[in-house]
């Protein structure tokens, strides 16, 4: 850059330029660098000369290169774009050329810079506000608020129907005895005995009525015995059978009431 020296002819400007270069890692990308450079124009950002800014940036990149400073790719992308913008701004507009004009591009860049600057000022104002724990304070001894927990149970109609559907479908293909592990209901025993009792003309031990698979396991046996005993009492009440027990703890025997 031949006129680079002219730009840095004052000591102050030279120091500023060096500070920029030394700090290149400190910049948060090309937009941040552009904003810093734009401040050297010492004008309102709205009146900034984007052309001058583009030249400043390109000069900066050139110097960084000559000092063999590694520049991140986005700095170079921005440099290429600014070189393009510069040519657009300098050359008379080509009527056949589509796309945005140099002025439009420049205006957008100025807007971006102004917006970034505005956000930085807003951030500073925000941090300058009174802050909790620094300028104002919350209650030092918060009192315990006793939490009374109340549980409310809910279910939807859909839950209900799905639940019911689940049960009924299960029934459809599973023999129900499989689901019943250790419980035999009175109704079940009654049903069984109604079918069997017609064949019991002789006194027979009640225990012999227990269904297969219920005689050995104690839990199952207990349940089956109880339900069969209750069922036989019911059948006796209806007059369908007779019951006898010869002595305490002796086997209970039943037989069908003889016909006639």
């Amino acid at each position: 850059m031949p006129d680079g020296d002219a730009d840095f002819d004052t000591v102050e400007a030279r120091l500023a330029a060096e500070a920029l270069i030394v700090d290149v890692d400190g910049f948060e990308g090309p937009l941040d660098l552009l904003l810093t450079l734009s401040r050297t124009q010492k004008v309102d950002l709205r009146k900034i000369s984007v052309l001058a800014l583009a030249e400043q940036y390109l000069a900066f990149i050139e110097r960084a290169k000559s000092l063999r400073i590694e520049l991140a790719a986005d700095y170079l992308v921005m440099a290429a774009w600014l070189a393009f913008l510069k040519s657009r701004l300098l050359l008379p507009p080509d009527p056949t050329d589509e796309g945005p004009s140099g002025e439009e591009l420049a205006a957008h860049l100025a807007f971006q810079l102004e917006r970034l600057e505005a956000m930085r000022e807003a951030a500073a104002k925000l941090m300058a506000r009174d802050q909790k724990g620094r300028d104002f304070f919350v209650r030092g001894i918060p009192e315990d608020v006793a939490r009374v927990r109340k549980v409310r149970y809910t279910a939807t109609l859909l839950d209900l129907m799905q639940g019911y559907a689940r049960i009924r479908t299960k029934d459809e293909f599973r023999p129900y005895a499989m689901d019943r592990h250790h419980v035999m209901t009175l109704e079940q025993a009654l049903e069984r005995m109604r079918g069997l009792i017609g064949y019991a003309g002789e006194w027979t031990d009640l225990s012999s009525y227990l269904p297969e698979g219920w005689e050995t396991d104690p839990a199952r046996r207990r349940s089956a015995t109880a339900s069969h005993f209750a069922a036989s009492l019911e059948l006796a009440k209806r007059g369908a059978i007779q019951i006898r027990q010869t002595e305490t703890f002796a086997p209970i025997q039943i037989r069908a009431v003889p016909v006639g």
Partner: protein
Amino acid sequence: MAEAEDIEESLFEAPPLAEQERMVEAILFATAEPVTVAELNARMPHGADAGQALELLRKRYEGRGVHVVRVGDAWAMRTAPDLGFLMRKETVETRKLSRAAIETLAIIAYHQPVTRAEIEEIRGVSVSRGTVDQLLELEWIKFGRRRMTPGRPVTYVVTQDFLDHFGLESARDLPGLKELRAAGLLENRPPPGEALADDADEDGDQTDMFEDED
């Protein structure tokens, strides 16, 4: 010389008592422990009289929702004891009914009036006391008439609360198995060939079952 002294004096002049009262108020409010008068004085500007400010503050809060109270030889602000009841926060936690409870409830709704043994028969597993109690407590089910069978078992029926909760006019409005199946609620398809027979079966089932009881 005299002027300089004046300036010095005014520089170290204690703030007005009203201002001191504000200071005591802020310190008592924000400090995590009760504060002694000595500590107050140490934190307040030179020449302040924390004891006097504290007395003003205590009077100001008399009868308010917050009191300035003495704790040992220190001072603190506390909510008025008569408002302790406000320091409870009721949180209502909504929980889904357990699967066992939903299934039991569904069986009662579809088969009512139904005995516990019948529920167990339909569910294929025993029904825990807790499940039934929970449904009774929710007032979604209640005891129906006793069944006129041996042991005279109690039956369960659903309540008006149940109908209200599920937006039903009556338990008979519950969709039948056929409709459940049409709605895709029966995830498991029955074995082929059994579908028709079953449908006819189950459908009549829930309307007729135990009909003679009500």
